[in-house]
């Protein structure tokens, strides 16, 4: 499909390896390669763009109005990264990164180790877990998932689609579906009423952001065409073999809407698996309610040589991600090629601050309600191992103190997704049951491989003398 997929990784060592070809990764790569660093970008998707600019160079959606001008901004980022001389490899799954800056990557069925002098982790965000009864049924999908299908394949929901949750993406998806000729049956807004009051004090900051006008415009466009039901305090996906209806609670009353598709969203959180497995220190963010890496002003992490940029460094949106990518790349250039010409870090920082403006308003307004983060006992929390919230609370009653210890009771977090879809819920559930902070409870101890590779691929990686001695007898 694109030339990136066929070529593969050309060399065994690079000045800079960037993991992720979204806005942060692309901007970082363009900056570093233009300054003369040998730069490799690895992304598990076939084409660059990340999730926000997914398939921006290959989407079959030709009517540019449908996805909107903010989406098409990504094409310029891809173009700049390609022109810079950075090597961009799609379909490349990074499954390991260690303190020696060795990057384990699998591409086209072959695994290998790449040596970097600097690494920028730009693995972005994923949608916050939304554990409600029935969220594992066929017919239930994330709003971001439906948006990905639209961007990359021009697919839209067929039949009655209900959108539910809170956050800007829900409104953007509704608008994009409407422009594509699909009218959602309803939007169930779970934004807690009390958040509006708490967010008010951050409004002056947000008023300076271009996002205010954009957001209001989107909401107007959607409200004119779709029934929006606000103040929703309970949600359930109903059906036995697939979704048949969406049940919801509002003002103490229970109602249900028949539906073929339920699209859920309650914000995005950093995708921490690679950074944590590499040993990068993280802390709990009490406003965004997620783990974020501890970083210096350039995005440098607690592991020398590893920086984190983009939404993986804490959620701030696509434009801020770009600036963070540039900032981390400038630092890499300064360290590896002090005499090279590169952008002034101060100017990039100023631009970043502009892009981050008003974030506190969005974070406060769209902070999801407690009952949608810590569900009732009979709700599945770990989708892979099918573990319920009640089982998790019961292990705490038995004396289990944290997510890693809990694995040996329940296998929770040990399925194929490796905790990506349950980790935050588990941390908050245990913290609540123990009456302590999420920071005290901690997260799963993550280890490479952070993505699955076959035994054959692993066995086929070239091993040094020390590695062979460690496992071969005699």
């Amino acid at each position: 499909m694109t030339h990136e997929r066929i070529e593969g990784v050309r060399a065994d060592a690079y000045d800079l390896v960037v993991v992720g070809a979204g806005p942060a990764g692309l901007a970082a790569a363009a900056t570093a390669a233009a300054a003369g660093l040998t730069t490799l970008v690895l992304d598990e998707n076939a084409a660059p763009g990340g999730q926000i600019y997914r398939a921006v160079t290959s989407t079959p959606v030709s009517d540019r109005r449908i996805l909107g001008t903010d989406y098409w901004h990504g094409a310029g980022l891809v173009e700049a990264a390609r022109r810079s001389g950075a090597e961009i490899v799609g379909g490349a799954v990074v499954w390991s990164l260690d303190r020696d800056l060795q990057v384990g990557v699998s591409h086209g069925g072959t695994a290998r180790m790449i040596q970097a002098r600097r690494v920028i982790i730009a693995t972005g965000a994923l949608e916050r877990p939304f554990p409600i009864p029935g969220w594992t049924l066929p017919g239930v999908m994330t709003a971001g998932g439906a948006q990905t299908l639209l961007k990359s394949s021009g697919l839209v929901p067929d039949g009655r689609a209900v959108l539910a949750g809170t956050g800007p993406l829900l409104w953007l998806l509704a608008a994009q579906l409407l422009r594509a000729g699909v009218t959602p049956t309803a939007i169930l807004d779970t934004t807690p009423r009390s958040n509006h009051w708490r967010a008010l004090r951050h409004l002056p900051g947000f008023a300076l952001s271009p996002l205010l006008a954009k957001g209001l415009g989107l909401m107007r466009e959607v409200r004119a065409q779709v029934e929006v039901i606000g103040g929703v305090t309970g949600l359930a996906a109903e059906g036995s073999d697939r979704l048949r209806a969406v049940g919801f609670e509002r003002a103490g009353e229970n109602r249900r809407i028949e539906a073929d598709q339920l699209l859920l969203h309650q914000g995005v959180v950093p995708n921490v698996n690679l950074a944590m497995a590499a040993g990068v220190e993280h802390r709990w963010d009490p406003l965004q309610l997620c783990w974020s890496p501890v970083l210096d002003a350039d995005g440098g992490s607690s592991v020398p040589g590893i920086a984190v940029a983009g939404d993986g460094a804490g959620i701030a949106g696509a434009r801020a991600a770009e600036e963070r990518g540039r900032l981390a790349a400038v630092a890499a250039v300064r360290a590896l090629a002090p005499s090279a010409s590169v952008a002034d870090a101060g100017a990039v920082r100023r631009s970043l601050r502009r892009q981050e403006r008003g974030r506190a308003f969005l974070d406060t307004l769209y902070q999801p309600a407690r009952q949608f983060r810590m569900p009732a006992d009979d709700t599945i929390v770990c989708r892979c191992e099918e573990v319920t919230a009640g089982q998790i609370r019961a292990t705490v009653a038995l004396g289990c103190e944290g997510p890693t210890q809990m694995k040996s009771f329940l296998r929770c977090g040990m399925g194929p997704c490796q905790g990506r879809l349950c980790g935050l819920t588990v941390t908050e559930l245990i913290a609540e049951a123990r009456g302590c902070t999420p920071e005290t409870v901690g997260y799963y101890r993550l280890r490479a491989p952070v993505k699955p590779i076959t035994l054959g691929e692993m066995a086929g990686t070239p091993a040094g003398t020390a590695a062979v001695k460690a496992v071969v007898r005699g």
Partner: protein
Amino acid sequence: MFRRLPDIEAGSVTIRVDGVPLAARAGDTVTAALLAGGHDHCRTTAVGGVRRAPYCLMGVCFDCLVTIDGVGNRQGCLVPVRDGMVVDTQRGKREVGR
């Protein structure tokens, strides 16, 4: 259920799903092709044996797992379709050698 926008055609690529030919568009992922082809779910789970469909479409939930060209537990949402590709849906847990 998902459908293609009216001006977008499938048909440039044919894959086989559980032995049955399925037309797809070059550029589709395996998961997109399955959803557009009316496959309501792509596997039954290893633990409870219940039906499961793709959830995140971005490589993190692992609910789109399928067997592709004989290799089990592949993330269908990350693999582009290729003409002649053989896709098998998964029932329950994997077995050694599959």
